[in-house]
């Protein structure tokens, strides 16, 4: 794609009139504005995570960190549960996402086939579940009855399919994979399975990487499943561990004297809020690392033209 795009941009430049130059200018302005608007607050989180929290709250920390210290990170990394949490989250994310893809992709393919009449009632039944649910308690009882309570499986199996992602994938299959391709394959004696595996999947790298990302991030950030269904410390994912660390450092942030007459104050206030920012960084860095790997699949695009030719 990069070469192709480069060449077409070049040719645009050659033939480019004022309109094209204006376009380039608008693109440049918007991208710089977007970059600055997003980058500064992100930078702020980083400096806030190593600055004195009192000064951060007072608005004194603007461009450079003040009274630099690493208390927030020390508090997080001195807690040994964090490595176990990372480990668990990685396992849940990898296995969970694999299962998600194994369930979602074939289903999206089948539901994208116009000849598959059953989709007329399957789709509405799926869509309804995006809106209507039994609620927390019946779901809890179900998980218990399936013997999934307090097992790693609940983190992997629960949420095996997101109808939202299914619809996105199906729409892509419907609109971006030419139907002639399937007809040709059928003529060739190709079964749905084989066609799906050897044509559809390779042609859909872009959308597959998007929903892979959606599912992965969903697992990575999953907090509520663990909160409800996991009791054992050694099974807790990163998000729960981090939340516990955060809470124990903000113990009195809700009001010192209140609450059963706590009698203890937020003496460590000047550090307490640091953790809030440090936690974001600790939990997000791994997700940022994987992004470029996924990103490269959108850039390559899909060479449908080549296949057709």
């Amino acid at each position, binding site marked *: 794609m990069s070469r*192709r795009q480069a060449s*077409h941009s070049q040719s645009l430049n050659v033939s*480019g009139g004022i309109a*094209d130059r204006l*376009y*380039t200018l608008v*693109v440049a302005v*918007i*991208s710089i504005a*977007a*970059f600055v608007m*997003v980058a500064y*607050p992100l930078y702020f*989180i980083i400096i806030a995570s190593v600055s004195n929290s009192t000064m951060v709250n*007072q*608005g004194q920390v603007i461009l450079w960190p003040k009274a630099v210290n690493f208390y927030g990170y020390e508090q997080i990394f001195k807690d040994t549960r964090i490595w176990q949490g990372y480990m668990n989250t990685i396992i849940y994310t990898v296995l969970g996402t694999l299962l998600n893809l*194994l369930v979602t992709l*074939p*289903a999206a*393919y*089948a539901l994208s086939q116009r*000849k598959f009449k059953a*989709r007329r009632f*399957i789709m509405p039944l*799926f*869509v309804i579940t*995006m*809106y*209507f*649910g039994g*609620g927390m*308690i*019946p*779901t809890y009882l179900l998980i218990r009855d399936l013997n999934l309570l307090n097992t790693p499986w609940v983190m992997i199996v629960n949420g095996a*399919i997101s109808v939202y992602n299914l*619809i*996105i994938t199906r*729409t*892509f299959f*419907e*609109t971006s994979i030419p139907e002639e391709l399937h007809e*040709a*394959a059928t003529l060739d004696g190709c*079964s*749905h*399975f084989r066609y799906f595996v050897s*044509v559809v999947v390779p042609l859909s790298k*872009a*959308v597959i990487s998007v929903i892979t990302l959606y599912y992965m*991030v969903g697992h990575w950030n999953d907090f509520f499943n663990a909160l409800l269904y996991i009791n054992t410390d050694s099974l807790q994912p990163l998000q729960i561990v981090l939340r516990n660390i955060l809470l124990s450092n903000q113990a009195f942030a809700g009001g010192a004297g209140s609450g059963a007459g706590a009698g203890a104050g937020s003496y460590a206030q000047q550090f307490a*809020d640091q953790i809030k920012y440090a936690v*974001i960084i600790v939990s*997000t860095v791994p997700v*940022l690392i994987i*992004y*470029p790997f996924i*990103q490269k699949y*959108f850039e390559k695009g899909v060479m*449908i*033209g080549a296949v057709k030719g």
Partner: protein
Amino acid sequence: MKPAQTTVPPQTLRGNGWLRKQAGHVQLWLMVLPAVIYIAIFCYGPMYGIQLAFREFDFSKGLTGGDWAGFKYFEQYFTSPMFWPTLRNTFIIAFFSILLGFPMPILLALVVNSIRSNRRKRILQTTVYMPYFISTVVLVALLQIMLSPTTGLIDGFLKALHLIPADTNLIGDPGAFVPVYVISAIWQACGWNSIIFIAALSSVDSQQYDAARIDGANRWQTVWHVELPAILPTIIILLIMNMGSILSVGFEKTFLMQNSLNKPVSEVISTYVFNVGVKSNQFSFGSAVGLFNTLINFTFLMLANALAKKTSKISLM
């Protein structure tokens, strides 16, 4: 996969057609089966819980064994003085979230797609993607710090440029609540939401660009005639699904942003249910209001879906 090269004799094709069609259906059924089973167990299995909205919760009789209460809890909400204010506030926030929040990722995707330098493209894309991972608590803390009327950086910037009156309190003024809520939501999710459009744009056929160029189209026209049509199905599908959230406003963010000054516009359905429910532990009231909320959302979804089907032949189902 090689394109079909051999010519199949017509008779063979016709003869096996029916059988093959049936075999094909079985395969398709097998492919959709895991999803169907999953949805049946995990989504339809607990669905009986909806009854809670129509029953008195009585623990000793089992989860849904309580006496039938009919529409009592719905009426309780409809007749409450907070019914219209919460409905209105929820709708306004959600409406502007969609109106402004939906097009922005598309715009961003088009911009990203037009950047020639791969490095710059990646830097921008990765940067705008990051805010999605900031928790709501930290987002609201950032707003508190940056918008503070005495020390806030953004507040100071806007006031220095006279974009807002000098006595504005962006965290408190009722008029500022919806803009702050919506703009911060866009800030946080725009990059993330643009991913799907960037992916869709990547599938635009290079032949189409070439054709546009040969026709003498400028870059604006290419956007209009090539890129937008290519991602239109994705846009429509996502818009339909967004319409299904016309009465959904994130509880946590609203709750954290709420204060005594902005309460006239910030009390939404979910915070109201929390205020009633948390004190009395009422399952039924919460379920009833939740069900009402869902029904409105679902109605909007169906309307949007029907409209899309009629005008563009693209639809959810």
